[in-house]
């Protein structure tokens, strides 16, 4: 664990001391090295149980896929940011890279934390670099509002979480993950216990996001620069899912009754945000609402609390992370050429950029959960576990799948097929860098078809 964490910390030093001409190459190589080393976390000799590194950091089959995703994403973010940062002064480029690296350090510490308070502190710590990336390097005036919404929605949810964790700590004595399974809070039917249950979950539901508290997400994803959108969609939303999975252990048996409205809200959110996607004119906004839709399914899967639900949620989180990040990169290729996010402004691109159309095709197929991709595996496992709980959820989830397919196809057809608009007179050919970026996103996704056991978690 420290083999990865200490090099990541020293990457900060490298950022500031590299010669400027070699900055991006050095950082890229360094982060790829760290990402390759992090793949060792996927090799777990036993299926359950923790791998202790020291008292404060550990990983298990639940956190290791997310850790690998985090480490894998940093080189991808570096590749994606190279173009739009090229004209900035030297120190600002170094600052931007430092923010990305510090985000990775906090995320590694969050996913490998063995104690809930450490997880909480790192969960909150990821807010600061993300806020600075969105508000400082976003491109439109609305980015300030986006940063405020992002910070305050997340904090309003997580401050009650802090109090709830401290309540649990004062009555049970320990918040270490290792002992959580044996210390569920003794449940009397007081109203206060229900409030405590709510306080524990609200932070993660806001982060995921659940449909009613999702307003920060379209703003933050749209206004962020490409690296910000990538890390938000791929990893930061999964912090919410991961935290929810960890804390579910102590929330029994209240969850059996209290989770009803949230499961239904999540499923309704899948349909509502999917429908909104069909009416979007802004490409990034479409992908952002698609993220809300997928994460609604994840939230429902976690709240169901069955082994298939958890497994499906984890697989969907990993697959959605890669897919959503790939879609944001594709949207960014459009943005860098036309400096606009409006979909209809850059249509029929298959004629102009045929190789990019391949990536659009694969990413759209992944988004609509085509078999045999892991997206489908996650969705089917969640839908099955929901069906097992109640037959009627099939209406909602089936409709959700249909709408997801519709808007993914809509997005693909609108951007790639059809006639080229007359005003497009100069579009740069695709850079090799962009092809590399998308290949690195989609190749792990395709490889996961062969061995999904790597991302199953400890329940299946």
């Amino acid at each position, binding site marked *: 664990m420290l083999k990865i964490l200490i090099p990541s910390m020293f990457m900060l030093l490298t950022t500031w001391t590299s010669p400027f001409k070699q900055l991006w190459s050095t950082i890229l190589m360094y982060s790829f090295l760290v990402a390759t080393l992090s793949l060792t976390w996927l090799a777990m000799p036993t299926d359950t149980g923790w791998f202790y590194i020291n008292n404060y950091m550990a990983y298990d089959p639940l956190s290791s896929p997310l850790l690998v995703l985090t480490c894998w994403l940093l080189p991808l973010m570096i590749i994606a940011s190279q173009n739009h940062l090229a004209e900035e002064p030297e120190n600002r480029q170094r600052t931007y890279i430092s923010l990305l690296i510090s985000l990775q350090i906090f995320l590694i510490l969050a996913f490998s934390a063995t104690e809930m308070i450490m997880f909480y502190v790192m969960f909150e710590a990821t807010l600061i670099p993300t806020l*600075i990336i969105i508000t*400082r390097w976003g491109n439109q005036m609305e980015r300030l509002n986006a940063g405020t919404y992002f910070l*305050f929605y997340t904090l309003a949810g997580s401050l009650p979480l802090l109090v709830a964790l*401290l309540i649990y700590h004062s009555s049970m004595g320990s918040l270490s993950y290792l002992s959580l399974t044996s210390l569920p809070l003794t449940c009397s039917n007081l109203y206060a216990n229900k409030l405590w249950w709510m306080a524990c979950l609200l932070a993660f539901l806001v982060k995921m996001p659940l449909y009613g508290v999702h307003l920060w997400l379209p703003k933050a994803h749209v206004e962020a620069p490409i690296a910000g959108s990538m890390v938000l969609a791929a990893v930061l939303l999964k912090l919410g899912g991961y935290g929810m999975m960890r804390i579910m252990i102590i929330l029994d048996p209240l969850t059996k009754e209290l989770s009803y409205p949230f499961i239904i809200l999540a499923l309704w959110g899948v349909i509502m945000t999917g429908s909104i996607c069909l009416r979007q004119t802004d490409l990034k906004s479409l992908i952002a609402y698609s993220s809300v839709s997928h994460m609604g399914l994840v939230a429902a899967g976690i709240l169901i609390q069955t082994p298939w639900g958890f497994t499906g949620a984890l697989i969907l989180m990993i697959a959605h992370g890669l897919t959503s990040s790939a879609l944001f990169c594709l949207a960014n290729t459009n943005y860098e050429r036309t400096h606009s996010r409006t979909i209809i402004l850059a249509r029929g691109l298959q004629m102009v950029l045929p190789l990019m159309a391949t990536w659009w095709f694969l990413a759209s197929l992944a988004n609509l959960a085509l078999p045999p991709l892991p997206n489908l595996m996650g969705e089917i496992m969640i839908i099955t576990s929901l069906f097992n709980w109640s037959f009627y959820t099939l209406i909602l989830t089936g409709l959700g799948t249909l709408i997801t397919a519709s808007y993914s196809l809509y997005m693909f057809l609108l951007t790639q097929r059809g006639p080229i608009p007359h005003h497009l007179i100069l579009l740069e050919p695709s850079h090799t860098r962009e092809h590399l970026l998308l290949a690195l996103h989609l190749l792990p996704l395709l490889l996961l078809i062969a061995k999904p056991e790597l991302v199953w978690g400890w329940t299946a």
Partner: protein
Amino acid sequence: MNPYILTILLFAMGLGTTITFASSHWLLAWMGLEINTLAILPLMCQSHHPRAVEATIKYFLTQATAAAMLLFASITNAWITGQWNLEFMSYSLPTTLVTVALALKIGLAPLHAWMPEVLQGLDLTTGLILSTWQKLAPFCLLLQINPSNTSLLLILGLASTLVGGWGGLNQNQLRKILAYSSIAHLGWMILVLQFFPSLTLLTLLMYFVMTFSLFITFKVNNSTTINSLSMSWSKAPIISSMVPFILLSLGGLPPLSGFMPKWLILQELTKQSLAPLATLAALSALLSLYFYLRISYAMTLTMSPNILSNALPWRLPSNQHTLPLAITTSLTICLLPLTPAIITLLTL
């Protein structure tokens, strides 16, 4: 100001606070507070600007009222219990009256109305002294009396955090923002006073460090409104890049050191079964965070349009003393991992 006069006044301020620290007799404590107040008054109106004189008079009147209430309470205590010792106040009337008097002295809600106006009339250095040094003596007294009225302190604390948050939302004058920030932080300190007094001291010292950084940053930029901060990115880029962290630390965001007092206070409150109060106090901190965020947007996270000669000024070595700023900024950002050491240090 004449350096001799300045020396005498600063020494007198130090003397007053030290007398209060060292005293166990109420009259001596009161005397120290009065010396402190009288010594800072010439410092406050040294510029002879009508605004400064108005601030000085408001400060004098409120502090004199508070000191008179304090004297009255201590005499009542002496009459009832027959002794003048600070620590042995056992009747609720004198204790409550002392608490309210000290609340007026430091500017807790609902006795906070003088604070923004007084701070607005002062220059930044004197404002810094008012926000930091002047709070030491009253807190010393608050820590020593045994407060008998649980709910009074909790009401003062919660009201202060809410007033400090809401009051600062509509301000664009930096000194008023700093006043409301001071009120909010004092509220947090009072919340935990009766349960774990060391945390009050910890919060006070952390607040001193953070607000020192902020005051000196504003002084280096010579700015008193939010709009005038927007030019600082070209003149002092490194200070500008550190300011969001100072402000977010004041707002209590992990992993910065400002999170430490809030975390420990929330922990203590939940141990005392005051969880709803803890939640309310935590959420009221979000109000203050909004205006801290606004300042950091204006200063660092947006770059206002600049003519070329402003954007590329000569960065000459500064004549200001920025070493204390560097030290307190580092402490404001990096102190959270040392929490166990700091608690041990302060619980001795």
